[in-house]
């Protein structure tokens, strides 16, 4: 092939970002298109488990083997996104012994290091486990931050020349002579990073190849070119606890069932989940009983969950896929494996492949396989290196340092910042400017926020997923306005307000299904403060600009005939 092919990747989740990185590292010209923020779809709505494969070791061994392989790779190349917490499969008295043995054997068959420990040992690791558990199996489960991982993949792709467009919705596929030759995109703002208020518009992007990595949305993209992709989206609820009740991933050792996992995630613990098929990945019921049921069930493993503070609940949609001839009734039976659908072979439509199914833990492997596939089409002879080249931020770094000496930060704040920034810590935190803490719950400083703004434009939700600012127990009650203030250093009032509104709406949205007890009190306090001190009690939906003049018209132009300076309406002295 004489010239470099241009590949459009649709979908800015883990899979799409992984593909974009892989292809661009092999010298392919890539454009990544995402309708929302990076991780907007399923990736941003997962429970943060880095699978050891143990969960699939009995029923879905192919997935289990992929998981343990990728688990090892990600610990290495994405070290700043991964926390190796270890995991337990815990057996309660009423759980089947036979299944426990199957699980243990399955793990060993799949090459997953697994050991049986007594209840006493398990409880000395995790003192909040129920007193009546019988025993447990240890596996190398971990916790992973999907936001950082995807942002790092996208940043790496960008370093290798890729174009990353967020808030850019694909509205149509361009098909000529039974071949996909590009996409039509609606940009919400101008090209490049998002800036509110800048003019967006429609763009036709010609491509030599299109990869559809839109997960649960794959069917929708397929329709645009008249091909049928039978993704079976399945929703699952997750609830975020205010603090970590456990520091190890806790799985219930049962064949299948809802509400069987607790994942320690950063400062929090995430409870998961349910598995229920839905028709539309964007419009499905989110119901209180799902949350209640989950807490009720998981308290059998960790009793203190019953009384512990929840801060949010959210639902994610798994992009499950199974070949049409399998026909599983129950979504829990659908394989977690991924499928590469070359539409040329499958539907006689050239120029596009879809990747469906699969899971977050195997995102890189999926990226590798589809990149191989694309490279083969174009005769590009380049090896995949995503399994050995660390992501930006995951080059060598240490969390053991003197944070006060190096960055002027108190130790837990410094430590959390470095855990998030990894090898980028010096670059971001070493500043001569004042560096106050902006988000106290998560320990996020101005320097980190400013770095995120640099990468994300005027989008405070994008700043949030990069830094965790506003993701702690007050859910932004005490920092959303500070984040807006940080934004206002570079952007004007209208832009800042739009971004601030979006952030507040997003923060409120996830609290709806966790509003009782302490979090309800928190919400009331947040509401009162935001209403009384930030003029937030007007209807947020009306979208009108605030008429500042109605409050304070500012100083009139000085009257040259007046002898003495007056007093400005803000009480300040006029004129000097």
């Amino acid at each position, binding site marked *: 092939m004489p010239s470099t092919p241009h590949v459009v990747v649709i979908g800015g989740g883990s899979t799409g970002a992984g593909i974009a990185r892989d292809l661009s590292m092999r010298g392919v010209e890539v454009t990544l298109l995402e309708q929302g923020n990076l991780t907007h779809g399923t990736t941003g709505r997962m429970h943060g488990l880095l699978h050891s494969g143990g969960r699939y070791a009995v029923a879905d061994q192919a997935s289990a083997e992929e998981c343990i392989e990728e688990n090892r790779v990600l610990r290495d190349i994405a070290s700043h996104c991964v926390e190796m917490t270890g995991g337990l499969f815990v057996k309660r008295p009423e759980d089947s012994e036979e299944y426990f043995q199957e699980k243990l054997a399955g793990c060993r068959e799949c090459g997953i290091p697994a050991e049986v420990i007594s209840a006493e040992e398990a409880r000395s690791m995790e003192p909040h486990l129920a007193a009546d558990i019988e025993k447990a199996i240890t596996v190398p489960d971990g916790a992973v931050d999907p936001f950082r991982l995807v942002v790092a993949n996208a940043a790496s792709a960008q370093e290798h020349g890729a174009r990353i467009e967020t808030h850019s919705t694909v509205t149509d596929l361009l098909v000529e002579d039974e071949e996909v030759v590009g996409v039509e995109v609606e940009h919400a703002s101008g090209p490049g990073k998002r800036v509110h208020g800048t003019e967006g518009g429609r763009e036709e992007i010609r491509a030599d190849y299109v990869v559809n990595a839109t997960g649960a949305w794959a069917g929708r993209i397929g329709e645009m070119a008249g091909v049928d992709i039978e993704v079976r989206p399945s929703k699952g609820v997750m609830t975020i606890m205010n603090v970590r009740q456990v520091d190890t991933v806790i799985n219930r050792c049962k064949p299948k069932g809802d509400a069987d996992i607790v994942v320690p995630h950063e400062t929090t613990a995430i409870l998961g989940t349910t598995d229920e098929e839905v028709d539309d990945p964007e419009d499905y019921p989110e119901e209180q009983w799902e949350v209640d049921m989950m807490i009720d069930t998981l308290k059998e493993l960790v009793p203190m969950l019953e009384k512990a503070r929840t801060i949010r609940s959210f639902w994610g949609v798994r992009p499950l896929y199974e070949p049409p001839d399998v026909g599983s009734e129950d979504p829990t039976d659908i394989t977690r494996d991924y499928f590469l659908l070359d539409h040329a072979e499958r539907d006689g439509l050239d120029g596009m492949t879809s990747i469906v199914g699969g899971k977050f833990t195997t995102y890189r492997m999926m990226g590798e396989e589809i990149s191989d596939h694309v490279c083969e089409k174009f005769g590009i002879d380049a090896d995949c290196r995503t399994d050995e080249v660390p992501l930006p931020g995951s080059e060598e770094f240490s*969390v053991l340092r003197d944070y006060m000496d190096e960055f002027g930060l*108190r130790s837990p704040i410094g430590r959390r910042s470095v855990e998030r920034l990894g090898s980028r810590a010096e670059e971001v935190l070493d500043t001569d400017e004042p560096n106050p803490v902006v988000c*106290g719950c998560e320990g996020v400083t101005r320097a980190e926020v400013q770095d995120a703004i640099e990468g994300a434009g005027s989008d405070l939700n994008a700043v949030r997923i990069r830094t965790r600012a506003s993701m702690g127990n007050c859910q932004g009650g005490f920092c959303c306005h500070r984040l807006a203030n940080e934004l206002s250093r570079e952007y004007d009032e209208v832009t800042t307000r739009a971004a601030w509104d979006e952030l507040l709406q997003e923060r409120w949205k996830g609290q709806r299904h966790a509003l009782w007890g302490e979090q309800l009190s928190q919400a009331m306090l947040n509401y009162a403060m935001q209403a009384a001190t930030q003029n937030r009690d007007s209807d947020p939906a009306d979208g009108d600009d605030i008429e500042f003049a109605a409050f304070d018209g500012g100083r009139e132009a000085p009257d040259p005939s007046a002898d003495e300076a007056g007093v400005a309406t803000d009480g300040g002295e006029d004129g000097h």
Partner: protein
Amino acid sequence: MSDADSPPTDAPSDDSFEPVEPNTGEEFEPVDVFPDSEDFDLRPGADSCYKCSTCDTNCPVAEVDDEFPGPKFQGPEQWRLKQTDDDHTVDDSIMDCSNCMRCDNACPSGVPLSQMHNTARGEYVSQEMSKTSVEYWRNRILSNYRTSAWLASKLPRVANFAMNFGPARWLMEKTMGVTKEREFPEFARQTFREWWASEGGAAGSRERARERRERRGDPVDADKKIAYFHGCYSNYNTPEVAKALVRVYEHFGYEIVVPDQKCSGTPMFANGMLADARRHAEVNISSMADLIEEGYDAIASCTSCSMALRQEYPELFDIEGVDDVAAHTFESVEYLRIHEDLKGAVQAAEIDDDLAEEFAYHAPCHARNQGLDRQAVELFGDLDGVGIEDVGDSCSGISGTYGWKAEKYEKSMQIGEEMFEHMEAADGEVGMTECPTCAMQMEHGTGYEIRHPMELLEAALVD
């Protein structure tokens, strides 16, 4: 009611407003993460925090020390950000907290702030502070005041001279970081315990109590008995307070025992010396628990001592009997107000000796936390011959050992400024407080003589 009964603790009826009970630790059970250590996982305590920052605005140290991040950071925020892995460090600003515990009282929502601070401080000292540093040894010596006081009591005259001898104090500041600005408290020539033995100890008390009951017309075998936790200060420095307590309680027909005891641990908590504190607590709990089982209640005349037995012990130590001791410990005036008609007795009395004064009363922070901050003013307001004025709700600033540290001295005096001003503005030139170190600070800042409520009760009630 029988005197051995506990004070009424009935829950309010269903229709009454029931505010969040602060710091009971009942909302969650902190678990012993490592059975052999004193580390508790307090992260769940952060569930109660709404970030309102009332604790920060009530923190006297944060008010004068801009470098100090305040109780919200050191409590719920630090615990929530904390990891349980071994190499997680506690921020060194924990050593700037004075352990006044006002944050506990300020919190509208029951965050176990002082428990979080004490535990983090213990972790910091045991894992991060150099055991060969001057700071460590200075703090260790200050917090083991009982040991120094015991030594000094052997030769009180020499000690009194040496401890306030200018060049020696200059040297102590230079080498140990103990401020030379303060006057060391004088050591009594006879400790309270020596006096107590000379008075016949428990047997003597029993006899006197029975005599007194007879005169009062109480049943001679009335079940009125207390175990006195005198603390170090009223043993070595102000035995007059302890003696007053003995006379007042015997006046009401109580028989007193003075069991073996060590330091309450208050200065050790404040310096993160939890192993020392635990050693002392074990002795105290063991002797008090046995007596409580026999029907005694534990009475302290120092509000920090009663605070330690009531709140800090159960929050920090998992020692057999700790909860019983906590439930049966009372401050000395509080207990009499519950069980006797103290108000009536005081109203019927009159002071015409050298205590006929106008008192400037300061409520210690630790008294405030036990709900005792108005008791002296309420009580003595009705006493003929004296006046009493509350000098406000500020912290005295000394917080035990805090104000003795050279680097903290100025801040300690800045915190105390408000109290000094209010004392100066009050009528009279005698101060009153329940806390020995608050008394030191009050005297240091105003030159006033400072008395304990027990002394005034003795003057009013005991012939």
